[in-house]
């Protein structure tokens, strides 16, 4: 028995990737709606426990390397977990675990019943990919896992109930593949000039090549590829449609994880692999990213104000929030980076909660975008007076919205606090002003929904509906609750994020919080 336990504890880094990967085909084989769900549920929770255990180990004992099959690099595949990875892994597995609880009720309505097992399989594969990206120790496996997660997410999006889900998925597929291939190209060029794929080795060898043209092109390819996956304006074209038409639970899952992992890739390559000396000091990538991020911040929020479909509104709000994260990265200060990384988790929590609240609404009003001749159930006019008939859902939405604005005692405030602090550290007060301006825009779009929820009369009496089932409402409140808890009890997230920021910016360690 103890032997078994030691096998498990020694293979923690691998297990969290392998478990969902093995469970995915199992789901296809089992082919039973509820049974596959149980399989997926057990596996995701196991992975979650695994990530937490791993994170604990990393914080106690420092970064750890795992050699797949016992082959040491450069021949074998290395999984390398440090403070940054552990943080991302915890977020991804936690979101997967919580979202999956809500999945069956929501799938029942939005996905054809003989495809549920496939949906769970794709879900698990996507999780595999995301966990893999976040734990891979070499550049090529980052690409492979990226493709695994992307391919399965195209499939998941295409499961959406409307025909527009198909076209959105196909668009995402083509653009996403371009992005993935750019990363592959960049990795090839890196290998060409350094002869290694291992991230740590790359980090050591790149300074020696001193801005070799091949490496520079590789940097551009990787950054552009990651930005497509990250949906940084103006490379965001695929995101609003994909989020709007995917099944509600899938949107909640992807919004909270996929873009976050892409952000991780971007940060990892810019700061660790290419190094601050090359990417920032020499080629000033931050000068390009910062304006784009600021535009994203304001553009996303402005578009969300006018958007009348709440799901799509949240998608635009995501663009804005991605802008915040990239701002944190492009400030290149300890506080800014901490803010960006902590926002990665914070935004994951609150946006996932908000999209699940939308899933609750969809459950009560019937599938969104089903018929051509009627409003989708996520249209603003459908939410009129919902504060009375669905008080818990509405309250969750309001709390998530407050977090989106950045009201104190919510996680949104914590992120923005560090971002503003970072802006001042960098001497860019105007960035801080823009962050506040964009928060003001957030008030407008959140208020728009609150006004409809609480101050508009329901269109008709028979439209009065009951509250959503607790299977969906529960996870929603877990996430909204977490976004309040971590808004007050900021120590765990902020400490992890600042440790992660130190990994990326070792030169600045000791400065800032």
């Amino acid at each position, binding site marked *: 028995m103890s032997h078994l336990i030691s096998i498990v504890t020694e293979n923690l880094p691998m297990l969290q990737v392998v478990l969902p990967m093995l469970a995915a085909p199992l789901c296809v084989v089992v082919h039973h709606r509820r049974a596959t769900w149980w399989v997926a549920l057990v596996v995701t929770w196991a992975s979650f426990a695994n990530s937490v255990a791993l994170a604990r180990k990393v914080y106690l004992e420092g970064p750890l390397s795992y050699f797949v099959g016992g082959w040491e690099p450069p021949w074998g595949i290395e999984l390398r977990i440090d403070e940054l990875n552990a943080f991302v892994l915890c977020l991804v597995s936690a979101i997967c675990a919580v979202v999956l609880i809500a999945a069956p009720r929501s799938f029942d309505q939005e996905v054809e019943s003989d495809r549920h097992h496939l949906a769970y399989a794709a879900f698990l594969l996507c999780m595999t990919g995301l966990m893999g990206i976040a734990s891979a120790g070499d550049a090529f496996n980052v690409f492979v896992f990226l493709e695994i997660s992307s*391919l399965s997410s195209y499939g998941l999006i295409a499961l959406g109930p*409307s025909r527009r889900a198909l076209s959105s998925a196909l668009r995402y597929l*083509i653009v996403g593949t371009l992005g993935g291939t750019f990363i592959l190209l960049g990795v090839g060029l890196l290998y060409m000039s350094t002869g290694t794929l291992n991230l740590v080795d790359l980090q050591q060898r790149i300074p020696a090549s001193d801005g070799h043209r091949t490496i520079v092109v590789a940097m551009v390819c990787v950054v552009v590829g990651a930005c497509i996956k990250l949906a940084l304006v103006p490379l965001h074209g695929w995101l609003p449609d994909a989020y709007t038409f995917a099944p509600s639970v899938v949107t909640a899952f992807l919004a909270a994880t996929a873009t976050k992992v892409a952000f991780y890739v971007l940060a990892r390559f810019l700061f660790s692999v290419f190094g601050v000396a090359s990417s920032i000091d020499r080629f000033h990538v931050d000068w390009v990213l910062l304006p784009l991020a600021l535009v994203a911040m304001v553009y996303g929020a402005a578009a969300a104000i006018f958007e009348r479909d709440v799901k799509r509104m949240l998608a635009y709000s995501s663009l804005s929030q991605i802008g915040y994260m990239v701002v944190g990265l492009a400030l290149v200060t300890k506080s800014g980076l901490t803010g960006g990384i902590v926002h990665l988790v914070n935004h994951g929590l609150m946006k996932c909660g908000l999209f699940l609240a939308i899933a609750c609404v969809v459950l009560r009003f019937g599938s969104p975008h089903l018929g051509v001749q009627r*409003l989708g159930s996520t*249209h603003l006019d459908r939410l009129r007076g919902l504060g009375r008939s669905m008080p818990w859902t509405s309250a969750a939405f309001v709390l998530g919205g407050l977090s989106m604005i950045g009201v104190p005692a919510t996680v949104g405030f914590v992120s923005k606090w560090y971002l503003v602090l970072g802006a001042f550290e960098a001497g860019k007060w105007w960035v801080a002003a823009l962050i506040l301006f964009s928060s003001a825009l957030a008030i407008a779009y959140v208020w728009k929904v609150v006004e409809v929820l609480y101050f508009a009369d329901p269109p008709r009496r028979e439209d009065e509906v009951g509250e959503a089932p607790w299977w969906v409402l529960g996870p929603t409140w877990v996430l909204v609750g977490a976004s309040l808890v971590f808004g007050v009890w900021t120590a765990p997230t902020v400490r992890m994020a600042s440790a992660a920021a130190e990994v990326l910016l070792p030169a600045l360690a000791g400065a800032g919080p």
Partner: protein
Amino acid sequence: MGPGLYNYWMVIVLMMTGLYVVLARPNLVKKIMGVTIFQMSVIMLYITLGKVAGGTAPILIEGAEDVAYSNPVPHVLMLTAIVVGIATTALGLALAIRVYEEFGTLEDDEIRDAEIADAMAAEAGGAD
């Protein structure tokens, strides 16, 4: 232009061809093909950079001491990349079939117009 760079030029030609097809052709299947060509160009790049001048296949031969081998790693990597490429193409084509069933066309801009029409019809249809 030495012969050593020939492959790289072809990589660039293929890459540009692929991207051009994605951009210029509204037909979704052609776009998928464009993406595939683009991927192939990158695969060719990897294969090319693994080649060592005068090198032979990386199979250990007993007794042959001074044989130059080509680098096997990029080849191995590309096995995975090809699988990824095939999966992408397959999924893309499958989606294209479903899109055609639903929209009755494969032209990107026509699909877009149909989607906008969907949205407007829903808005006009009202809450019920």
